[in-house]
């Protein structure tokens, strides 16, 4: 099937009025944080935006090929961001160690991306360009991303396709043998490259093969089934602080290992699993990033979350994850719920037309079922909150709405619908056991992606010298919302084309002073990991790790999900703090430290999610505006549109860890746009 877009968001007209906000209204979170110094990205070159990346590449110091072997790099993560970096740096001759928690680097969650990858190739001669991709991405991010970074992303996007094709990635092709493109995310140009509904898989296999080639060449060593549990940040004899390694646990033997290096890269993916249920894989976690955060790396915009409207709903309290379905389904399916609560348990086919509420068509007559993602998601939530959701009752509420193809089948014929959506219908039938040709599908929004992540400068370096962050784990390119097909682009841009240049500037000053396992920073990191493991195994309480994770997820989803309010967020912070106390006193982890122990692995991840969840709520509380994926109920127009406040919030919120039990410190990086004008979104 060629049009299984899993990602979609309508491009909308903009109007330029800039609403102002009463300054008294912007201190919601004043009791929860300490104001810090402003933050500036010192690495972004000035000058015309189109020249900045070439300037930076030229100015970055070089490393003599003969020295590279002596320089060691640790890369945590083998998704698109990590595998591409490991392969490229291995090819350059550095000494690379690559880590992942799965049993093979090929299984990182990038593998699950379906829809495609953007690149400004302009193969269709439809007016695409680097500048247009840049423009669409900044606008899609609701003017909350850093323009220099986004421009660079658009600029290197074209190289990515060349590289992947040369590696043998089997992109879709036209009959003439040239690459096919489609338009995606409602944008007006066709710039999305795809490999049926498995683009992420094919791109990742390409990067994985390049990585394994370097393993054979002896430049990269892989550590599968190894989980990074701490970063080592050490002072050298002159007092310079640098990231110098990690503590990892061999997940099979339980051995706690120290790995030292000249530089550390985190490419550890997104933290959507803080919501327990999401489209992420079971193991996706925040541990690598959070441990770095506690050691001094700032966490930027943690509340920016993308919620995808068309996922298969929860079927019961046993649910372990959610599955995304292509949003292209909204092109032909009509979304509705029963008008009356009494009808919600009925067979939908028995509910007559006049008793159905096609609420998107009713509220948004011009866009109808194709309203942007966040609006479609919120509207579904409101119907279900109102008691008019459908499907099985889970914890007393039905959380689902119908996506009905009866009209489309009548209009186009079953064969045409099958040709377009057959594989999605099959997937739906496999998971739900219902036949969507006969009974309307049920859908509900789910957490899909996080725009927030560790703060990085233009070089992708965090606030800890020598700690670089790439891919979904950093915050850099998507602002408050990510356009479809641009996460794959960012992961590969970072790993193949950006990091290899910026990291050499850092490594040119190395190899750094040798440290060994007796260095106090190493001892401290190791001891803290061992103590944590020991703690979890000795609490011997009454509740499983999963039960805590699920409860945290419920709190996050309820109060820090599709719609956020001051009261709700404050309540969530209290609930999370109580839950965290209880977790440390009452969790039950069986088994031993020196064997494969999946409960123990999960305990460490949930502990970090609990702290992250609190910070996300504080960040959301502070940001009393609606922008991108972040909707504050207090900041909307009369007709329920998101209302951004550029006068007060055109900044990146970079949070510094304040210490155990202390308030976090907020550093603001002002966003300045020189190459693009800020506009308000409107879907009318």
């Amino acid at each position, binding site marked *: 099937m060629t049009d299984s877009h899993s990602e979609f968001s309508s491009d909308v007209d903009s109007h330029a009025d800039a609403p102002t906000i009463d300054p008294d209204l912007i201190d919601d979170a004043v009791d929860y944080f300490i104001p810090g110094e402003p933050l500036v990205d010192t690495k972004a070159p000035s000058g015309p935006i189109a020249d900045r990346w070439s300037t930076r590449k030229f100015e970055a110091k070089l490393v003599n090929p003969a020295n590279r072997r002596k320089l060691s790099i640790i890369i945590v993560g083998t998704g698109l961001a990590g595998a591409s970096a490991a392969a*490229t740096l291995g090819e350059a001759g550095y000494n690379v160690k690559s880590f992942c928690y799965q049993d*093979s680097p090929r299984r990182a969650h990038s*593998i*699950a991306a379906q829809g495609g990858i953007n690149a400004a190739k302009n193969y269709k001669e439809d007016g695409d360009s680097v500048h247009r991709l840049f423009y669409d991405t900044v606008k899609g991010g609701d003017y909350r991303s850093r323009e220099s970074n986004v421009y660079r992303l658009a600029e290197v996007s074209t190289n990515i396709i060349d590289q992947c094709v040369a590696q*043998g990635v089997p992109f879709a092709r036209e009959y003439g043998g040239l690459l096919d493109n489609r338009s995606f995310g409602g944008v007006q140009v066709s710039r999305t490259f795809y490999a049926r509904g498995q683009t992420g898989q094919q791109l990742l296999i390409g990067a994985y093969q390049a990585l*394994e*080639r370097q393993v054979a060449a002896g430049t990269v060593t892989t550590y599968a089934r190894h989980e990074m549990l701490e970063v080592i940040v050490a002072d050298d004899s002159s007092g310079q602080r640098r990231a110098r390694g990690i503590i990892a646990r061999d997940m099979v033997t339980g051995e706690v290992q120290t790995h030292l290096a000249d530089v550390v890269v985190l490419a550890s993916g997104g933290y959507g699993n803080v919501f327990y249920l999401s489209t992420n894989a079971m193991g996706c976690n925040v541990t690598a990033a959070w441990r770095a955060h506690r050691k001094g790396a700032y966490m930027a915009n943690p509340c920016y979350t993308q919620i995808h409207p068309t996922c298969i709903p929860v079927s019961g309290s046993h649910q372990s994850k959610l599955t995304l379905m292509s949003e292209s389904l909204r092109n032909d399916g009509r979304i509705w719920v029963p008008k009356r609560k009494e009808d919600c348990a009925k067979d939908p086919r028995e509910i007559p037309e006049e008793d159905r509420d096609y609420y998107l068509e009713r509220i948004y007559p011009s866009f109808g079922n194709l309203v942007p993602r966040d609006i479609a998601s919120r509207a579904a939530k409101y119907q279900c909150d109102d008691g008019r959701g459908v499907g099985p009752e889970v914890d007393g509420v039905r959380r689902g709405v119908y996506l009905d193809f009866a009209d489309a089948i009548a209009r186009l014929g079953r064969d045409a619908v099958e040709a377009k959506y057959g594989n999605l219908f099959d997937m739906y039938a496999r998971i739900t056991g219902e036949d969507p040709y006969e009974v309307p599908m049920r859908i509900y929004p789910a957490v899909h992606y996080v725009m927030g992540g560790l703060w990085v400068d233009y070089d992708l370096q965090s606030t800890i010298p020598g700690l670089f962050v790439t891919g979904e784990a950093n915050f850099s390119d998507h602002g408050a919302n990510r356009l479809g097909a641009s996460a794959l682009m960012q992961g590969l841009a970072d790993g193949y084309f950006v990091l290899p240049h910026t990291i050499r500037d850092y490594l040119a000053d190395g190899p750094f002073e040798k440290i060994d396992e007796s260095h106090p920073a190493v001892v401290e990191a190791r001891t803290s990991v061992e103590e944590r493991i020991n703690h979890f195994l000795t609490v011997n309480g009454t509740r499983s790790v999963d039960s805590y994770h699920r409860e945290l997820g419920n709190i996050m989803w309820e109060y820090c999900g599709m719609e956020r309010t001051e009261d709700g967020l404050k309540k969530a912070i209290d609930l999370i703090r109580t839950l965290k106390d209880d977790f440390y006193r009452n969790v039950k982890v*069986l088994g031993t430290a020196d064997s494969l122990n999946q409960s123990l692995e999960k305990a460490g991840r949930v502990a970090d999610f609990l702290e992250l969840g609190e910070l996300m709520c504080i960040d959301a509380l502070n940001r009393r505006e609606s922008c991108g994926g972040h909707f504050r109920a207090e900041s909307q127009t009369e007709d329920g549109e998101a209302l951004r406040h550029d006068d007060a919030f055109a900044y990146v919120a970079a949070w510094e860890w304040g210490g155990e039990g202390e308030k976090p410190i907020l550093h603001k990086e002002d966003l300045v746009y020189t190459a693009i004008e800020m506009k308000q979104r409107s879907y009318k």
Partner: protein
Amino acid sequence: MKLTLKIWRQPNAASTGAMHTYELDGVSPDMSFLEMLDVLNEDLNAKGEEPIAFDSDCREGICGMCGLMINGQAHGPEVTTTCQLHMRSFEDGDEIVIEPWRADAFPVLKDLCVDRGAFDRIIQQGGYISVNTGSAPEAHSIQVPKDAADRAFDVATCIGCGACVAACPNGSASLFMGAKITHLGELPQGQAERDSRVVNMVGQHDHEGFGGCTNIGECTAACPKEIPLDVISQLNRDLRTALRHGH
């Protein structure tokens, strides 16, 4: 539904394992197979018994991390991955036997988890096209006929789960290897290394202790991605050609 589960338990790679029997009540047909095991594990944890270790990650049939022998069938009764199998494929009162992949080249690590590192080592021996980052030509300078591109894609969908090996009476990884050989061999970019690729990968395959292919076809029947058997013919053809070329 109420089920009787007979599950292989083995504390670690060095020890010997045994089947254990568990009764599980309250299983809903909407649960996935792995969610059913999650529920069992919650029960065990509550009773103070260590949960059963099994692998999974994406739980949407694409990462290849999951994989169980279910009543003697790799990934169970349907053509899909273990994580996409749902309990509605079973009936109330059923007895279900659950074991790890069994193959010499996939040692059991604990309970239902095995070590599939051999697959990575086969890929290291040539399952790639050698092209350093930055040295690629403009993408449109390489034209690929659509049917070749489609065929390459079809076989490139292998998820590296290992069901083919587990299903094969000889423990052969020929289907996995044939899929990669065919994927890269269909494309113009893959021609330069075609001979050395097949020779080196097959060498590593045999070295890892995988068995030879005797054309039984259990692999393709068990494969959740329906990789066709003819990739093994392609593998053999490429190998003969390479040997003829003096490799």
